[in-house]
């Protein structure tokens, strides 16, 4: 059974803290993605990675960074958390294929920044 796992389902952090969200996939996928989901705004891409150590900015990269040191792991980093980063964060992975391959999603991490 294919699987994408995220390190936490729920996370509460304080403003200014450095936050790490971890995502691991066991499908040997080249592509990995980080999205945030907010009510009424749908899914917005933060960053994606198409290979180890390779990354590309998505639509809303400000305030975030990413790390991909191993093929199976993709980390999202909030350098200094702010209240407007309170959101649901979803990780996904896929094979490359110009939209011909489905993305597999993790269960999500609901982050609250107070």
């Amino acid at each position: 059974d294919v699987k994408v796992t995220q390190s936490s389902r729920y996370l509460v952090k304080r403003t200014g803290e450095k936050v790490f969200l971890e995502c691991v996939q066991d499908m040997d996928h080249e592509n990995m993605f980080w999205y945030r989901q907010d009510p009424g705004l749908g899914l917005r891409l933060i960053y994606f990675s198409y290979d180890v150590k390779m990354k590309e900015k998505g639509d809303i990269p400000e305030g975030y960074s990413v790390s991909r040191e191993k093929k199976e792991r993709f980390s999202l980093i909030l350098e200094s958390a702010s209240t407007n980063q309170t959101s649901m964060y979803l990780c996904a992975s896929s094979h490359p294929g110009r939209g011909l391959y489905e993305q597999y999603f993790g269960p999500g991490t609901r982050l609250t920044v107070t």
Partner: protein
Amino acid sequence: SQQGEEDPQALSIQEGENATMNCSYKTSINNLQWYRQNSGRGLVHLILIRSNEREKHSGRLRVTLDTSKKSSSLLITASRAADTASYFCAGFMGGSEKLVFGKGTKLTVNP
């Protein structure tokens, strides 16, 4: 914004009825996928329609793609209470490997 627009934003129907959701983009779309999300969970892939296809069926799902109108529709026939979820379209625009998701339609199927 390249983000897809879905219509309606919310839909409430009775069990057994059909549900139709539409998705449109401002820019050209190629391959398009539909996903389902149960409340508070990750998304699950439902169906892919390629840019050279106009219609595709999978079980109770029927998807259409009109590349000239930059739009797609998802029809769920004979709906069930278990179909209650949010549904998202996701289009490939070309270039990098990104999919551009719509804002979603929240479907409620009443028993």
